[in-house]
């Protein structure tokens, strides 16, 4: 799944899964860096989506007026 196709909810779930694995000590040290990188990327994606939606809402409502 590419990042543009990833839904907000799915991204959030992935982040939570990473946290869950960390909590349960299910992650090995070798992949930890990779997982952190992924988590950061997903968080960035989620924040971008939130900002984009906010902008869109404002734009749509301005058009209606």
């Amino acid at each position, binding site marked *: 799944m590419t990042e543009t196709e990833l839904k907000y909810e799915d991204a959030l779930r992935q*982040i939570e899964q990473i*946290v869950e694995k960390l909590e349960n000590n299910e992650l090995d040290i070798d992949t930890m860096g990779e997982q952190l990188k992924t988590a950061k990327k997903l968080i960035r994606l989620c924040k971008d989506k939130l900002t984009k939606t*906010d902008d869109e809402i404002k734009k749509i*409502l301005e058009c*209606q007026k």
Partner: protein
Amino acid sequence: MNAPLSLFELNNLVREVVSTSLSMEYWVEAELSEIREVRGHCYMELVQKDLFSNTPVAKASAKCWKSRWMYIRPKFEQVTGQYLRSGMKVMLKVYADFHEAYGFSWIVTDINAEYTLGDMARKRMQIIAQLKKEGVFDLQKELSLPVFAQRIAVVSSENAAGLGDFMRQLTDNSYGFKFHVELFPAIMQGEGIENSVIAALNAINGRFEDFDAVVIIRGGGATSDMSGFDTLALAENVANFPLPIITGIGHERDESVLDMISHTRVKTPTAAAAFLLEHLEVVWHILVDAETEMVTIAQHRIETEKQRLLHVAEKIPVLFSLVKTRHENQLDKLLMNIISLINERFSSEKHNVMMLEEKLKSLVDVRLQNEKHHLLMLEQRVKALDPELLLSRGYSITLHNGRVVVDASILKTGDEVETKVRKGIFKSIIK
């Protein structure tokens, strides 16, 4: 005894007596029992019946010469709306006439049409009283014309001009209303009216669900005979009819019984069509008004909803920014969580490694110590086994072909062996 007279002479005497003693003109009330027109002259038979037994108490012939008849007849028909016919009560102005060859006859010079009219009215009153007694007089008025009265059964004579007027008026309406009209032909003149109209009504009654209303129309001059519409049987039929009946039988002076009991009475076929159109027009306006009202209500509703939406929409950015902040906080928390978990894990791993390192160091020390001890032990054992030491104690080592001899049986006679002692080596031959 006088000499006999000839019939002519005798009749001549009568004629003289009649003309001298009955020289005036008289008004006489009588019932017509017969009437016929021959070559423009009118010949009538008059009768007076006993009030109770109905048997004639007086009879006489009457004539109206063409020259008078052509004035009297139209005047009568104009006033009464009827032809002179048998059974009619009339008041005639007459003078006596006796003709030697044709006998006695009353010669009519005038007719009192109002008298007949009064008699007709009285008959109508009787019919009305009878209908009221039967409780059917108002039945038609209690019916209501359907909202969409467009399926019309017409009772009329086929070739009447009035029917054409009716159809034209109904078809060429400015609204473009469509009517389904079906003609039930009937005789609308003279004696046949009653039976013919009743037959037409019966035919309609057989299919009354196919129609919304019945129109009885009759076009024609004011002098036509209308009496056929004033009969009890026809009135009863109309009164009890299940559909509203509209009459347009064209009578200027006064209503026929049919007009009185019908649902709606108009004067002419054209007016009947106009009435139906007007009725539909009212319905049409009601529909148009309803349409306008619906549009207004809908528009109002749409406007209200639009305002509501706008109001709601204004709240969206604020609400969403709340959602956004919440989600951002959640994400930040998740990241912090991840980082702290990773840090925790790392420090724990580091600790593990450190512990292992410590453990390793001590283990290596122990091992080294052990090995050292082992080596020492080995050294001592080696030392104890040193051959030099044995040689110095007097032991010797015998070698054959460079190998130590430990078994004498392997040596053969003549083999040369080397014997090593503490100091020096000597050779020996086996015997």
